C-alpha cells in the first residue's frame, strides 16, 4: 500500500462520495422521526428516486429535471405514507414496510425499459483544483454539487432543529403531540410536512446513486442502503452531526476493507465485510453514551398514532 499523502486524500474523497446517499436519506428521515413519525419506507423512496431520476435523465436529457423529479417522486411516495398514517391513522411500521416493498416492485416495473442504458456524465465541480492541490485537492474538490449539499445538510438540520421556531415546533410535535395540539399547533400538518421533506431527501439519495455514483439503472440498486440510513438515525440518537459521523465511518470502512483486500492482508474476508456494520454501531454507541442527552433527543411519541379529539 502506498501511503503518500495524495493517496490518502483520494481515499478520503472516495469515502465522502460513498457516504452521500446515507447522509441524505438519514437527514431526511431524522426530521420525519423528530416529528414523531416512524417511516420505514426509506429504501422504497430511495429506489423510486433512483429510477425516476434516471428515467427523467434519459427522457429529457436534462440533469436538473432528473434531480428535481427524483425528489418529487420520493415526495409523492411519502405522500401515500402520509395519507395512510396521518389521515387514515394506520400503523406506522406496517405502512412503512409496505411502502418499501411497493417502491422496490414499482421501480423494477418502471425500470424495465431503462436497463442497460449508459448514464450521462454528471458535472463535477473544481476539477482543476482537485488535480493541482495535493492531499486537500481530492478531499475538497472535484465532487458533484449534491455532495457539497449533503455535507452541509447535517449542520443545517442541526441549526434548524435547535435554533429556529419551526424546529422547536417539530420537536414539540414529536415529543408530545397532545400538548402541541393544545398550544394550537396543527400536528397533522407539521407531520405531513416532515414526512414529505423526508421523502424528497430519500428521493435525492436515490438519484445520487443512479445519476452520479453508478450512473445507470439496475433493479434493486440501492442494495439496502435505506435500511442502513434508518439504523444510522437511531444509533446516532437523532443527532444530525452524529448521523454525519456514522455515515462517514460506514462509508469509510466499506472502502477501506476493499483496500485491505487489495493489499492482500491476511484477515478473513467475511470479517472485513462485516466490519462497517460492527464499527459504525460501536462508535455511535460509544459517542452517544450520555443517557440524559439521548432522552433529550429521542422523540417520545415516535411511531405513535395521533388523532385530535373533536
Amino acid at each position: 500500500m502506498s501511503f503518500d499523502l495524495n493517496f490518502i486524500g483520494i481515499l478520503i474523497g472516495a469515502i465522502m462520495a460513498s457516504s452521500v446517499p446515507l447522509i441524505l436519506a438519514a437527514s431526511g428521515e431524522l426530521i420525519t422521526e423528530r416529528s414523531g413519525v416512524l417511516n420505514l419506507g426509506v429504501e422504497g423512496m430511495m429506489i423510486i428516486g433512483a429510477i425516476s431520476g434516471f428515467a427523467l435523465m434519459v427522457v429529457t436529457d436534462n440533469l436538473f429535471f432528473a434531480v428535481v423529479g427524483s425528489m418529487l417522486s420520493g415526495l409523492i411516495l411519502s405522500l401515500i405514507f402520509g395519507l395512510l398514517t396521518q389521515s387514515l391513522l394506520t400503523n406506522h411500521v406496517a405502512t412503512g414496510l409496505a411502502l418499501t416493498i411497493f417502491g422496490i416492485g414499482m421501480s423494477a416495473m418502471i425500470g424495465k425499459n431503462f436497463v442497460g442504458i449508459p448514464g450521462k456524465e454528471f458535472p463535477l465541480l473544481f476539477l482543476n483544483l482537485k488535480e493541482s492541490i495535493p492531499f486537500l485537492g481530492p478531499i475538497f474538490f472535484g465532487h458533484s454539487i449534491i455532495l457539497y449539499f449533503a455535507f452541509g445538510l447535517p449542520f443545517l438540520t442541526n441549526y434548524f432543529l435547535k435554533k429556529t421556531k419551526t424546529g422547536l415546533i417539530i420537536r414539540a410535535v414529536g415529543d408530545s403531540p397532545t400538548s402541541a395540539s393544545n398550544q394550537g399547533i396543527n400536528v397533522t400538518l407539521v407531520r405531513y410536512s416532515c414526512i414529505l421533506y423526508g421523502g424528497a431527501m430519500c428521493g435525492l439519495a436515490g438519484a445520487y446513486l443512479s445519476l452520479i455514483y453508478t450512473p445507470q439503472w439496475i433493479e434493486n440498486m440501492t442494495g439496502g442502503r435505506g435500511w442502513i440510513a434508518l439504523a444510522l438515525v437511531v444509533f446516532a440518537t437523532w443527532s444530525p452531526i452524529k448521523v454525519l459521523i456514522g455515515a462517514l465511518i460506514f462509508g469509510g470502512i466499506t472502502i477501506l476493507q476493499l483496500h485491505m483486500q487489495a493489499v492482500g492482508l491476511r484477515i478473513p474476508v467475511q470479517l472485513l465485510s462485516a466490519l462497517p456494520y460492527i464499527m459504525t454501531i460501536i462508535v455511535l454507541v460509544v459517542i452517544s453514551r450520555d443517557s440524559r442527552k439521548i432522552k433529550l433527543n429521542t422523540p417520545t411519541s415516535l411511531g405513535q398514532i395521533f388523532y385530535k379529539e373533536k
Partner: protein
Amino acid sequence: MYKLFLRSLISVLFLLGLSLYANAEFKVGFVYVGPTGDHGWTYQHHEGRNAVEALGIKTTYVESVPEGADAERVIRQLAQSGHDLIFTTSFGYMDPTNKVAKDFPNVKFEHATGYKREHSNVSTYSARFYEGRTLLGHMAGKMTKTNTIGYIASFPIPEVIRGINAMTLAAQKVNPDIKTKIVWVFTWYDPGKESEAAQALIDQGADIIMQHTDSTAPVQVAEKAGVWSFGQASDMQRFAPKSILTSIIDDWAPYYVERSIAARDGTWKQQDTWHGLKEGMVAMAPYNSAMGSDLIKEVEQLQKDLASGKAHSFTGPIYDQKGNILVAEGAVADDGMLAGMNVYVKGVEGDIPQ
C-alpha cells in the same frame, strides 16, 4: 346416479382434452436469475431464447427469479403448464431443478453451470469461460505498465477461482513480474459495491481491471480512471468505449437451438456439456485497436490455438501459492481437476476466503 356418472364422464373427458391440448404444442421454458436487460449473464441467455423462438418454437421465460424456494415454484409452474423442455440458467437452481424433474419424468430439464443430474431427464451444460480468461491474461500481461492486475471476484467457487488462475497463468507467461490483486465482493450483482472495489484496486496501482461479476459498473469506473478493462458475459464496449480491450461473450444460442430441436424430435438424451471457444459457446468481442495490431494478431492466434486444442489454458508446470506442483511439466489439467479447482496458482496474492 346416471346423471352423476355422466357429469363425471364429461369432466374427465374435458380434463383429458385440456391436457392433450396443452401437450399438443411443443413449448420451451426459460428461468432467468436477473432481468433480461442486465447486459450481462441473463441478457445472453435471453439472446439464446430468441434464437429458439426464431425457429418457430414457442417459448416462455420468467425473469428475476431468486435462487431458492421461489425458483422451485416457478420451475414447477412451467412444467405443469405444458412445457416440454425447461432451461434453468443459474447455479442456484440446481437442487430445485432436480426436485421438479423427479415429479415430471416426461419433461426435459437443462441446468446451466451445475453438476447434479439426479434423474435421467436432467442435463447440465456450461461454458469454458476460462479459455476467454486466458486471452484476457495475455492482453493484461502485455498492456499493464504497473504490473498489477485488479480482479473483482464474486464467490469463492471453482468457476471463479479457475478464471483467476487461467488469467494469472497467461499473464505470467508474457510478463513474469505481474501480480494479481483480488477483491471479493460476495455478490453477483451490486453495481455500487463493484465500483467501489474497482476504484480500490485502481487506487492500489492496478491499471487493468477485470471482474467476475455481472454489472457494467467496473468498466465504467475503469473508463473514468483511464485504465484498461474487460467486459464480462456480453459485449460491454459501449459502456466504456476507450477502456475496454475486449469482452468475453457467452453464446448460448447454438446450444439452445440444438437441444430444443432434439427435444422436439424426440432425440434428446441426458448429457453433460462443457463447450468453449472451439464450439463457440465462448466468444470474444472485437479487440480494441488501442492494443496495436501486433498484439491483436498474437491474441487471435492464441484464440485459434485454444479452439483447436493446440494450446490449453492449464498447461504444466503449474504451481500453487506454496510452490507445490499442481500440473506436471508438459501435462494439461484434466476436466475433473478444473471442475473442482480450489487453490490459487503461484503469483496470485492473498488467500481464498473459506
